[in-house]
């Protein structure tokens, strides 16, 4: 019996209340928060135990203790389960279960000589109220973001995807510290292979603890070495439901306000739901702008470095003279100058992100304006380069996804080095390497660069640009959803003459 107690796997009851108390106290040795009370009536004894701050004290008083100590009730498990006006009553026999549930805020009632213990989940959870997301912001569209509470998040999702098709599979991940993980998709649309792959990855995950959804994402990603994020993350329920509605899978992790969306392509990191809220032509413009800024951000400074280091011929004379004049006093080679400035911008961004909002702004101004001007005046950098660096930094922030934005900024550094060492040849080498690398990546087994490769021209209008709604009647073909059609194609408009 002792052995059974230690392992906690078997039934430990029936037990004397004193024994139970000492057993629990020994488990919570350094934990003074276990409240263990014994009530006596005639010859019967009943013990009520829970962790103070994990339960709603009011409810324990009103719905549990009051009826329990009343006259009507018999102190047996059956009658307790019947009489107490709470629906979440359950019985447990194993010590492990008791301990696990104690931690999430269950109240236990043990009637001496019973073979199990009754428990009610009266957990109290401190939650942040629903707030606007800080990392992703929309000008148009719903503003709320996910919170740390799984129930709140599920609640939001249910409200935004109101379909009986919505499946919310539950997984418990983490050996030492189990967490609830939800796999969410639309049964009738999401691709079966994708679901199975995701299920398998979640089930086979063998880790002690999942700290956050971003961590979970890295556990289940296809490639661990790449710099590119392979799953899209979002804090915005509207972006989440947009993707779910189009047949992707979502993963939510308890205690994390970020949801994972899979499979994702390179291009989905540049999509914003705002493009949908805008008119299609405006949306197209914004999207093209974002792709443009990707190129600008990765190539502008490297091209400058390449041109002034090796290829003065490709700059027209008037511009060359401007560049030369601004470079004249700078004592470093262009590559060092560019790396130095890029590093400075990164420092500014990082310190701005770490500091409180108000100080952060000041740092931005001080860093950007004062240090920048001083650097030019001191002759450490050229002012043309400052413009380029600032422009490319700005461009990198247009990516709607923070993970991709960071990746883009980091990509610049090897590009600058290549441009500084090998000129344009180096840049094209870097670009080729990047393209080949992207081609090799997959997300949940689906090609990362789709719909460019594999070429699915039908999807271009959802990914690269947008067309009016009559052309949007199909879902992404490249994800192979079960149901491709979103709505019936509108019949072509009758051809009308003027003034008819």
């Amino acid at each position, binding site marked *: 019996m002792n052995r059974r107690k230690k392992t906690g796997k078997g039934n430990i009851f029936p037990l004397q209340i004193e024994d139970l108390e000492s057993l629990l106290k020994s488990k919570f040795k350094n934990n003074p928060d276990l409240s263990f009370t014994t009530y006596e009536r005639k010859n019967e004894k009943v013990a009520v135990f829970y962790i103070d701050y994990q339960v709603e004290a009011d409810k324990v008083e009103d719905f549990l203790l009051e009826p329990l100590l009343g006259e009507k009730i018999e102190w047996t498990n059956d009658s307790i389960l019947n009489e107490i006006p709470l629906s979440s009553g359950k019985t447990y026999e194993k010590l492990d279960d008791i301990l696990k549930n104690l931690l999430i805020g269950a109240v236990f009632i043990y009637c001496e000589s019973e073979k199990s213990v009754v428990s009610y989940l009266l957990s109290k959870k401190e939650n942040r109220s629903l707030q606007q997301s800080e990392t992703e912001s929309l000008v148009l569209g719903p503003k709320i973001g996910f919170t740390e509470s799984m129930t709140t998040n599920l609640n939001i999702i249910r409200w935004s995807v109101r379909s009986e098709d919505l499946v919310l599979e539950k997984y418990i991940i983490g050996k030492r510290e189990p967490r609830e993980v939800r796999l969410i998709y639309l049964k009738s649309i999401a691709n079966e292979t994708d679901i199975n792959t995701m299920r398998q990855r979640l089930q086979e995950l063998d880790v002690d603890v999942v700290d956050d959804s971003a961590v979970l994402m890295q556990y289940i990603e296809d490639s661990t070495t790449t710099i590119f994020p392979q799953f899209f993350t979002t804090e915005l329920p509207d972006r989440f439901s947009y993707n779910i509605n189009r047949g992707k899978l979502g993963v939510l992790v308890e205690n994390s306000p970020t949801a994972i969306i899979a499979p994702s392509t390179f291009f989905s990191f540049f999509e914003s739901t705002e493009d949908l809220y805008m008119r299609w032509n405006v949306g197209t413009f914004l999207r093209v702008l974002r792709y443009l800024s990707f190129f600008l951000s990765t190539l502008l400074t490297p091209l400058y470095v390449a041109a002034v280091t090796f*290829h003065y*011929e*490709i700059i027209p004379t008037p511009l060359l003279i401007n560049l030369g004049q601004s470079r004249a006093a700078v004592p470093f080679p262009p590559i060092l100058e560019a790396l130095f400035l890029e590093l400075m911008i990164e420092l500014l961004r990082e310190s701005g992100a770490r500091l409180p909002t108000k100080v952060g702004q000041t740092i931005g101004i001080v860093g950007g304006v004062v240090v920048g001007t001083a650097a030019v005046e001191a002759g450490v950098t050229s002012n043309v380069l400052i413009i380029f660096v600032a422009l490319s930094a700005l461009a990198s922030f247009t990516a709607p996804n923070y993970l991709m934005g960071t990746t883009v900024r980091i990509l610049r550094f090897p590009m600058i080095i290549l441009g500084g060492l090998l000129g344009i040849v180096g840049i094209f080498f870097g670009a*080729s390497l990047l393209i080949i690398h992207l*081609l*090799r990546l997959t997300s949940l087994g689906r090609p990362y660069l789709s719909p*460019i490769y594999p070429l699915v021209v039908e999807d271009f209008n959802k990914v690269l640009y947008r067309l009016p709604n009559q052309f949007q009647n199909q879902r992404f073909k490249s994800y192979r959803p079960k149901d491709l059609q979103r709505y019936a194609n509108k019949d072509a408009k009758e051809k009308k003459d003027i003034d008819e």
Partner: protein
Amino acid sequence: MEINVKTRKNLQIRAFYLFFIVTSLQLGVGIIGAPKLIYLEALQDAWISILIAFIYIIVVIAVMFIILNQYENADIYGIQVDIFGTFLGKLLGTIYILHFAISFFSILITYIEIIRVYMFPAISNIAIGFLLLSLVVYSVLGGFRVMVGVCTLFFIFSHWIVFLLVHPFTQMDITHLQPMFVSSFPELLSGAKTTSYTFMGFEILLLVYPFIQNKKKARFPAFLAISWTTFLVLLTTIIVIGYFSYQQIARREWVLLGLFKIQNLTFIERFDYIVVAQWMMIILPNLIFLMWGITFGMKRMYQIRQKTTLYVSAVIFLVASIFFDKHFVIQNLIDFSARYGFWLVYVYPFVLLPLVLLKKYRRNKKAGESHEK
């Protein structure tokens, strides 16, 4: 050795990618020098030579398709073993591998030379060679689908160069193309023959055919690819003839790159530099598929792991590139590659065709006989 190639379903590609594969393999370093070579042979009637070559290539491709369609899912290595027996078949297969290797190497060193002449005279062959080969190895390691992706994307990303031709096109002197039809037929033919090196690359069809999903639709993209490359070669040749004078063409080495010297925007000019760098994306698909052809052949015939061949041959090419840094040595190699490739690519299929048909006829007869029994 298996005659047919067993391809996993997820390695297969849709037929229209054949367009990108064939175009990417045909366009390479050849087109940079081709206008000059054709012009020197056929003068202003060079375009007729190109059209003759085009018609001939269509016939060759048709023959290749007939040969391939006699088998269920075979490539050239398997077919040769089937026709000529193990020893001779493997020998011929090895010749093919050598052809790929020589083409690979000639492309590699020509491009290195172009970079050295246009940009970095001081850079060592091994540095650029290392860069290119590392890209080749990295993409071949990605497998067949990645390689096809490289072809497709690099095709898309490099074709903006065509727009640069607009400016020289407007500056053409039409009288350079006149009078027409002056070259004799032998001259036209020898002009057509000089295109052989440029147009080479479609023989990859004999290798990638088993990887195509819907084989029935494979013809159209292949012919489209040939037409597109022919169009580009035709266009560049005509522009070169109209834009340059005879002496200029005769004296310049890479005459096509001369066309990109005059465009200018307010912030950038001298596009020849950019085009030279961009050309990396045009030759890479060549290198990648030729390298793959080598590794795949070694695996098919000698059961050597593809990775082993890949690494070993990459190192060999890298080391060999050190010794090919003189212009005329490189030219000799290209000439050799062109001559060798000519027989293998343009003539050999016609030899193979009757043999394959004969074999099939016999086999059918035998099958029919056994059926009757």
